[in-house]
């Protein structure tokens, strides 16, 4: 396994050579910057992607919580979320590997749009698999992908959401593996995907670490990020993992040693409507995998899962489509088990309040995913120390319809009166 008990390569035999080819490419291009791969990646993320993103002091949240709150502004990355960090990295890697085509899955469409953008930018033919339900409810994202020249295949199986889209993308990959790279959308899947995606996303934490030092003079007491599959989470956390007194987390490869500064890492999962499982229907009304899941194998890796006692994967639920996944990155499972990352969750309502609160107080409309991190900040700020970084992983324009619908059903403190919305 790759991370303690977690990770591995649980894929059909036909894919093993591709996975091993990717391991080799990961080592050469990503770890060793062969042919200047990482230089080109970083350069393109600067010019095309808009990096670095700012670390912004949130004046009104700081006042509200009587401590220093900083926001890492991944919502400003091209495409509107941190997703491009990974998509561009992988499409570029596919090019270096001589692949002629990429495929990717998408749930709400954020990873699909990021991949389509990256593919257009790098002139790589691209097919995206998206569940029928998601196609219907995320039509603007379908349009964006098509505008970027990608093909979008709707997946009719099952509930027509992310899980089915991943399954179908794996099937495509298994058929076309020799010339195709599968741009997986999070720190999930068989090794080396979780490491590869993490390393592409780690720029979030790397920038944050430098910026907070410069702007606040020290490392934060805590970093808060939402966790679905976990790519923005690992991206935000990775550079901070060694920042603790526990010598187990000294990052040997970078020559670091245990730190004096102890940075708490909080992965905020989607609590949905409840943390209780609906056992009869094998449905989880949440996506709180780290908090409530059990170990198993899904989509190529051993990790924590929302599953029935018999091992069937449950349908997960969240108001935020991007967190709505029954698995989670294996490295996060490991970091949770080993105590380095604290798994927490907030429910749909707290996330909606977080959405409205940031929109009104700071003039930033966050993604519903990121709104979970903001919901947790509201609930638990007293436990987070004097200097807190929240990763705003994406912008919320894509979520307006959902938020309106869900706000109408509730009596939310931070929301405007949505009944009289056009003035």
């Amino acid at each position: 396994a790759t991370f303690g008990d977690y990770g591995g390569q649980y894929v059909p035999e036909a894919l093993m050579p591709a996975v091993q080819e990717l391991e080799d490419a990961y080592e050469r291009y990503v770890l060793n910057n062969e042919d200047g791969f990482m230089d080109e990646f970083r350069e393109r993320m600067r010019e095309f992607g808009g990096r670095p993103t700012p670390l912004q002091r949130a004046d009104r949240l700081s006042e509200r919580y009587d401590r220093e709150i900083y926001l890492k502004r991944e919502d400003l990355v091209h495409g509107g979320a941190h997703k491009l960090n990974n998509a561009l990295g992988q499409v570029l890697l596919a090019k270096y590997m001589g692949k002629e085509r990429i495929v990717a899955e998408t749930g709400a469409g954020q990873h699909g749009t990021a991949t389509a953008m990256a593919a257009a930018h790098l002139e790589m033919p691209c097919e995206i698999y998206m569940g029928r339900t998601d196609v219907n409810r995320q039509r603007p994202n379908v349009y964006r992908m098509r505008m970027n020249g990608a093909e979008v295949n709707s997946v009719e199986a099952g509930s027509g959401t992310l899980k089915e889209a991943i399954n179908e993308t794996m099937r495509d990959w298994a058929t076309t593996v020799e010339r195709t790279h599968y741009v997986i959308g999070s720190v999930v899947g068989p090794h080396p995907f979780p490491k590869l995606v993490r390393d592409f996303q780690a720029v979030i934490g790397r920038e944050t670490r430098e910026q907070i030092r410069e702007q606040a003079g020290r490392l934060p007491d805590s970093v808060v990020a939402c966790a679905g599959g976990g790519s923005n989470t690992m991206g935000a956390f990775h550079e901070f993992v060694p920042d603790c007194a526990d010598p187990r987390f000294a990052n040997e490869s970078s020559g670091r040693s245990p730190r004096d500064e102890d940075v708490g890492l909080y992965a905020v999962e989607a609590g949905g409507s409840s943390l209780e499982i609906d056992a009869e229907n094998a449905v989880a009304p949440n996506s709180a995998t780290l908090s409530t899941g059990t170990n198993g194998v899904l989509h190529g890796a051993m990790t924590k899962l929302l599953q029935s006692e018999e091992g069937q994967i449950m349908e997960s639920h969240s108001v935020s489509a991007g967190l709505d996944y029954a698995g989670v990155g294996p490295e996060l499972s490991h970091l949770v088990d080993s105590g380095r990352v604290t798994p927490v969750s907030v429910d749909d309502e707290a996330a909606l309040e977080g959405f409205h609160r940031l929109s009104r107080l700071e003039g930033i409309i966050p993604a519903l995913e990121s709104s979970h991190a903001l919901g947790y900040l509201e609930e638990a700020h007293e436990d987070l120390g004097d200097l807190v970084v929240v990763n705003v992983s994406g912008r919320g324009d894509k979520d307006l319809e959902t938020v309106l619908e869900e706000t109408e059903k509730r009596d939310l403190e931070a929301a405007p009166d949505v009944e009289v919305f056009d003035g």
Partner: protein
Amino acid sequence: MSGDSTASEYDSDVEAAIRENHPALITYITAGDPSLEDTKAYVEALDRGGSDLIELGLPFSEPIAEGPTIQAAINRALEAGTTPEGFFELIDDLDTEAPLLVMTYYNMILQYGPSAAVRPFVERAAETGLSGIIVPDLPAEEADPLREACDDHGLDLVFIVAPTTEGERLERIMSQVSGFAYVQARLGTTGARADVSNATHDSLSRLDDYDVPKAVGFGVSEGDHAAEIIEADADGVIVGSALVDIVAEHGSAGAAPAADALEAKARELKRGALRGGETLTNDTEDTPEPEQP
């Protein structure tokens, strides 16, 4: 409890079933589609129809290696409430000529016990008389725990050899073959296809040097396909989607007509395999001179 556990010159029931019934027919259906009771009748029909080995799918919610036909069967089985325990009770209840294998995804094996470990599943499988296990999402690299458990309980762990399996990995897998090598004739997922021949020959010729039984699957639906595959020097032919199609077609008509159709299909396939075997013998013994131009 099924299969004749005769001591033989072969390492396992599974290998014996293929070698002794050469060219062998290996059939697959999904357990619990549309119900475990029906599955019992179908398995017996496949056995009567001449299956030399029968794979039973234990359904998992995320069957990433299956094509649409078997995906749909798995969904039907899950909707019918098929559980691992029900599955094992079915096996217990079966008495077939052909040894039985379970085909399932790794998570189903892990979750059978209390703490994500493989042994409880293997113990129960052995107890019910299953002869082996096939796990489409478990490559050789991750298979040690399951292989050890299988070894300890006398079960075969069947590995798949894909068109992309090459070089050292091919050697390693072939050296670990238990029961037979499941040769995937082409890239992609399971599913019946009209044309099977071209890729088969290539897939098998890469394995010429290995003296293990080779059964070819992915895409076989007719007796003629079976013949072609055996002609291409396979020891067995594996048929799944074509049989699952029959189950699906007769779904609402009750078990008996489906069982009859399955038995007839098995017979057609076995005859095809035998025909392929004869052609091969004739060809080998008595290769015709090339015609003079």
